């Protein structure tokens, strides 16, 4: 008899969603997680009286109960929706370019247009037409793909066929003149890790549409609450989870999954493996079959390992208002050259590239202990420059980065630095350590259209081996959770097909 019908490697969003869906679908499932806590990126850590949120800034795709987005249904199916308390954010973000722009975009279409018009009155036509394009484009996506129209043709869906492969920059250039307006509208590019020149218009449109229609959200208890709820759903449905236990090898025979060997040397038999470890670790490190390894790695050969982050986690001994923080999500940009900003992600420099400052306590006053607040300040960074820092200078380099970042935000949030009680700096190396991903990339590969699932061979190279998470699709909470549920569905379908064939 086999030990488990399915083994899930890694308890990130994708792994946990897959495990919960498998267990609830009746499969005997085991999760192996290297770390002592579930979540991967979706976790928190404690310093002094603060519990720092690691990664969740804005949850997308949830929607209100009366106007649910796709994520709401997904969480319902995973059995965790009722266990979670969500906090809606009123605004998308406050956008600051020192001395040039300071505006806050509300999370509704009319409001955004109103705010943009106030600052950029000369661009009225472009602003209205742009959001019209975003909406009409996305409505076509919904009818064609979400509602599964059997007949998807250029005649029926002209915008889709025209814009799906366009880059965001050329579209923005077509609609706007003022570089600051372009910068503001493309403000979310950091959430995809690519500047507008390289970012598909469909991805930028999806981000804008999802956050406007379904609002940005946060969670009471942070992302750890979600991870713990999914872990509980796995256990409640009879699944098992082993923490502090990594997978070391995926054993195959004749091109099919046979077992997983743990880092304690135990071999556990199974027919299905869902890997939430990176595609690189899974195929280059875990997979034992040399031929299949080559085949799988050929698929991703042209891809580039995506960006990681430098995050400054700060716990302040005062409420947000005392240091003039008025919005949950804030972006600070210094230049209008987004390509240059992107190039800076490959350096250690933090004196210029965009910063994201999230202060959860603005929308959820009891996120941190009474009378305090926490803010996470994030900037994109690839691992390479950090890998070149000599180990003995690593800590000093962290402090140097933190100091520069604090100097940049101080003018906008006066008193910020003096009020810091606890702080921690996470670098791409930190992400490598806690996730085990190459480049410490929580985003997987760079999100170019050519590497998207549209062009990938959907068939797993090894029978029974499925991937889930950012490395196998798109980054972010909603996409990774969706990918986990999809992997589980495919396995359950396969299992019942085999069952019926007997």
């Amino acid at each position, binding site marked *: 008899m086999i030990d488990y019908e399915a083994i899930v490697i890694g308890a990130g969003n994708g792994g946990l969603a897959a495990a919960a869906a498998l267990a609830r679908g009746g499969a005997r499932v085991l999760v192996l997680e290297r770390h002592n806590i579930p979540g991967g990126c979706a976790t928190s850590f*404690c310093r002094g009286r603060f519990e720092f949120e690691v990664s969740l800034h804005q949850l997308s795709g949830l929607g209100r109960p009366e106007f649910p987005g796709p994520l709401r249904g997904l969480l319902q199916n995973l059995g965790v929706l009722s266990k979670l308390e969500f906090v809606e954010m009123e605004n998308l973000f406050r956008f600051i370019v020192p001395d040039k722009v300071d505006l806050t975009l509300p999370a509704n279409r009319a409001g955004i247009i109103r705010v943009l018009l106030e600052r950029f009155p000369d661009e009225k036509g472009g602003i209205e037409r742009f959001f019209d394009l975003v909406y009409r484009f996305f409505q076509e996506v919904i009818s064609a793909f979400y509602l599964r129209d059997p007949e998807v043709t250029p005649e029926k869906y002209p915008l889709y066929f025209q814009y799906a492969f366009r880059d965001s920059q050329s579209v923005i250039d077509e609609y706007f003149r003022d570089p600051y307006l372009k910068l503001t509208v493309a403000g979310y590019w950091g959430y995809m890790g690519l500047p507008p020149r390289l970012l598909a218009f469909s991805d930028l449109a999806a981000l804008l549409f999802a956050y406007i229609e379904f609002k940005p959200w946060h969670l009471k208890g*942070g992302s750890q609450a979600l991870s713990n709820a999914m872990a509980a759903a796995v256990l409640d449905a009879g699944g098992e989870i082993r923490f502090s236990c990594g997978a070391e090898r995926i054993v195959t025979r004749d091109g099919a999954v046979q077992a997983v060997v743990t880092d304690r040397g135990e071999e556990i038999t199974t027919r299905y493996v869902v890997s939430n470890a990176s595609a690189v670790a899974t195929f280059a490190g875990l997979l034992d079959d040399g031929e299949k390894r080559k085949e799988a790695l050929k698929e991703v050969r042209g891809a580039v390992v995506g960006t990681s982050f430098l995050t400054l986690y700060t716990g302040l001994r005062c409420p947000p208002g005392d240091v003039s923080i008025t919005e949950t999500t804030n972006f600070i940009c210094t230049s209008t050259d987004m390509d240059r900003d992107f190039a800076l992600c490959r350096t250690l420099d933090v004196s210029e590239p965009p910063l994201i400052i999230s202060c959860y306590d603005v929308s959820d006053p009891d996120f941190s202990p009474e009378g305090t607040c926490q803010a996470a300040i994030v900037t994109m960074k690839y691992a390479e420059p950090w890998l070149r820092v000599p180990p003995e200078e690593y800590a000093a380099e962290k402090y140097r980065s933190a100091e520069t970042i604090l100097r940049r935000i101080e003018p906008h949030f006066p008193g910020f630095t003096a009020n810091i009680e606890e702080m921690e700096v996470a670098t791409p190396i930190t992400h490598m350590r806690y996730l085990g991903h190459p480049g410490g990339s929580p985003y997987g590969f760079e999100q170019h259209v050519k590497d998207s699932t549209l*062009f990938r061979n959907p068939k797993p190279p090894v029978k029974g081996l499925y991937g889930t998470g950012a490395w196998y699709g798109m980054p972010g909470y909603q996409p990774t959770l969706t990918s986990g549920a999809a992997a589980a569905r495919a396995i359950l379908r396969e299992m019942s097909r085999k069952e019926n064939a007997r």
Partner: protein
Amino acid sequence: MRPDILTKIEGYDRVVRERETCRKYGTDFSVERGAVEEYVRRLHPDRMHLKVAEIIEETPSAKTFRLVSPNGPLPPFQAGQYVCVYCDIGSVRTGRPYSLSSPPGHRGYYDITVKAVEDGFVSDHLLNDIRRGDILETSGPEGHFHFNPILHDRALVLLAGGSGVTPFMSMIRESLESGLERTFWLFHGDREPGEAMFREELERLAARFTNLRYIPVIENPSPGYGGACGYITADLIRREIGDAAGKTFFICGPGEMYRFCIPEILSLEVPAGKIRREVFGPPKSISRSPGWPVEVREDDRFIVSVKGGKSIPAKAGEPLLVALERGGIVIPSLCRSGECSQCRLKLLAGRVYQPEGTPVRRSDRQHGYIHSCAAYPLEDLEILL
């Protein structure tokens, strides 16, 4: 996506060409095998096997173990951090954290300085059984009790109790060796004058460097002892440091010391945020902690059953982690002070006492997770590992 749709999207040919070109000149990811782990190990090894190169007798009751790595430079650390030393004693596998007392500039060796304690277990083993040439298994350097140039003043008031002086030795040695711009006042409380470790070195350094003031404070002095006596009080601190403004306080020692010294420091009008405290292991007597239920006595005994595993006996007065280790169940541990969550496990049934302020994540609390090194059984328990 269905090819008939894909091929009709404007720009399809361009994307396909791009894909082909990138594949042609792309990366062979097979060479990445193990690369992340190898790099991370250099900074944050999970486990190290270090050789005891030298044993230095510091006082009759304390020894320094100089540890070297057989495989190249040791991971850097920040002065004030600790390593956990893991060992097998009889049939028990356990570990204890020890602050590194050597300065961080040297990547050739780590020093830990171990002091005997009453009814010691690991300390006895280290002090009595370990010889030069033996191998010690340790964690990588860990902990948050270190200087932060952004948050802390350059003027530092250090309060040590007993072996709590070890992290400060690392900080002081680092600063004086590399000429960092820092000023220290070190108050070192100990029972007898002969027990104060590093006394000679500290007196020598204090005589030579104007930015170090060393104030040993002896609890039970012999008649005629000339130095400071009793406890480290607000009065004594004020006399030595003058104005407390613009100074950051670091405190490291046994739990009782924190209870006494922190109110003393606060009475000098030092803001709470300017006092950094090192974590400390289980107190001598947990039942004297605030919130301990009166009806439970420390030697009350309970049964802990591990779901899908065995049942073991446990004492109310001892951390659950220790009971598990005594019962032959090994679970990961590092700080053994409630801080790092390595020893996290799920409580399925029964109640435990968790000292106030133990940093357990909010949603962990809601889902019944506890840090077993800082959880004391109050009745029979069922747990999930």
